[in-house]
């Protein structure tokens, strides 16, 4: 059976050219960039080049790019590094309710260390309000951290406007751009971004590598201590093969930007339109236009997400869901709940995240299979027969999830 990969927001396949090149940096060009000898020198040059390529993708300077193990580490570094370096100025951080857990859980940890965090709400499209952001700012605010684009529903936040507000108030602005890099134009100068997190495996680079952009002059302290690597900002021998791979993925992302994203938008809009035309009782989650090129997210009433994923998987289609069963917790996606979806609708969500290798045929096949699966699951659902969600008001006596 043909398999269709629709989960690019989770991870992308590493580009074959990149993977082949990386092998060389494990076997023949295996030197440690800190070494004085020729083995060290030959890779030191490559690490610098990768840094320049990452910087070019977001219009930063190479000396503002620091390599990390990925998005989560970059997020931790940004929040903890800024918080502790600026605690004499203030202890207040502003973020949103729909951030990735790498931000949310770090913020919760910082609260335990005495910092105060405001979690901005979002509207039904997953968009923050600039007025609410302005109102949340106090003279103790040291950092605003708002994601560039949401990983579940694809909504792109008003980053340039947020950057302007942060600058006006003299507050650092960090953005988790893990989903946005390579998919949305990013210019850290124009958008007044002070710190930015990115991750290699979300745009055809390898796993286990990412970077943080830190604008020159930003007061931040290192989180991981040890050797003098990354100009004393992030200790640990450089992951040279992955750094080289990340640099290459940045070059490819820049080179193919227009063509790849036009391809994704065309497939995305075709899939959204097809689902809307063929399946009743659905809700498109996320902003209708300000959304990532590859993101499709729907809630299908009366059915549960894991059943839907299993059914799709049996037909060779790999996607994801915000249902509790797939979120690894007892509650469905915090993003969908923050957008005002009731639990039962959030349980029935499906995220399809498209990638560059997806085709028109993949979309056509999905539009053939998905309506059948939805119809089958709905025919088994007691909610559907009553054609109402009124039953949900009843207290749950037997369910152990309390």
């Amino acid at each position, binding site marked *: 059976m043909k398999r269709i990969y629709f989960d690019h927001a989770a991870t992308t396949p590493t580009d074959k050219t990149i993977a082949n090149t990386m092998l060389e940096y494990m076997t023949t060009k295996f030197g440690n960039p800190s070494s004085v000898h020729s083995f060290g020198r030959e890779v030191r040059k490559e690490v610098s080049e990768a840094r320049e390529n990452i910087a070019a993708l977001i219009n930063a300077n190479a000396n503002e790019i620091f390599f990390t193990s990925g998005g989560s580490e970059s997020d931790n570094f940004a929040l903890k590094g800024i918080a502790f370096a600026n605690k004499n100025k203030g202890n207040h951080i502003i973020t949103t309710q729909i951030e990735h857990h790498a931000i949310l859980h770090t913020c919760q940890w910082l609260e335990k260390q005495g910092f105060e965090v405001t979690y901005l709400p979002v509207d039904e499209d997953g968009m923050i309000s600039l007025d609410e952001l302005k109102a949340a700012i106090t003279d103790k605010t040291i950092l605003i951290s708002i994601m560039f684009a949401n990983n579940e529903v694809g909504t792109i936040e008003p980053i340039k406007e947020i950057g302007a507000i942060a600058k006006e108030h003299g507050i650092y602005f960090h953005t988790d751009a893990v989903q946005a890099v390579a998919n949305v134009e990013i210019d850290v100068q124009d958008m007044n971004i002070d710190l930015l997190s990115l991750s290699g495996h979300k745009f055809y680079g390898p796993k286990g590598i990412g970077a943080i952009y830190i604008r020159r002059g930003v007061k931040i302290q290192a989180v991981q201590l040890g050797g003098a690597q990354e100009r004393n900002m992030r200790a640990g021998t450089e992951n040279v093969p992955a750094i080289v791979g990340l640099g290459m993925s940045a070059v490819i992302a820049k080179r193919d930007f227009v063509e790849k994203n036009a391809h994704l938008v065309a497939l995305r809009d075709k899939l959204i339109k097809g689902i809307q035309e063929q399946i009743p009782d659905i809700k498109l989650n996320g902003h209708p236009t300000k959304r990532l090129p590859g993101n499709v997210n729907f809630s299908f009433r009366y059915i549960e997400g894991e059943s839907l994923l299993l059914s799709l998987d049996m037909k060779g289609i790999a996607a994801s869901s915000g249902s509790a069963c797939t979120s690894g917790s007892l509650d469905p996606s915090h993003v969908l709940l923050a957008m005002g979806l009731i639990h039962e609708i959030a349980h029935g969500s499906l995220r399809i995240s498209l990638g560059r290798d997806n085709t028109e045929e993949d979309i056509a096949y999905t539009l053939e299979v998905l309506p059948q699966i939805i119809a089958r699951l709905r025919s088994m659902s007691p909610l559907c027969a009553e054609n109402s*969600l009124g039953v949900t008001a009843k207290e749950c006596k037997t369910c152990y999830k309390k």
Partner: protein
Amino acid sequence: MSTNEYTEKVMDHFSNPRNVGEIADANGVGEVGNAKCGDIMKIYLKVEDNVIKDVKFKTFGCGAAIATSSMVTELVMGKSLDEALEITNQAVAEALGGLPPVKMHCSNLAADAMHEAIKDYMSKQNK
């Protein structure tokens, strides 16, 4: 949690569920769960002479919820009410070759729904 923890038997009952639907003249109906939690199981019984002549289910929920519902209908079909009341959630899970630990408490309620349906039948008989 991940799908590959489901046994072949679970996947079989999920993809080819037995006894799906409603019984128009059911004389016992039981429902457990809540849509907010992500699982609702509804069992319909047709009881004659204290024997379950027919049983059907409708379920909103994950793969385990659907598979356990299907399995419980298979286990009680043709059984006496006393026999059916002895079937536990644990027995349903065992009949499926086990369930992932995370599913044991949230999606393994099919026997409860069946017991509720029997209670409903009994309460109607006592009237």
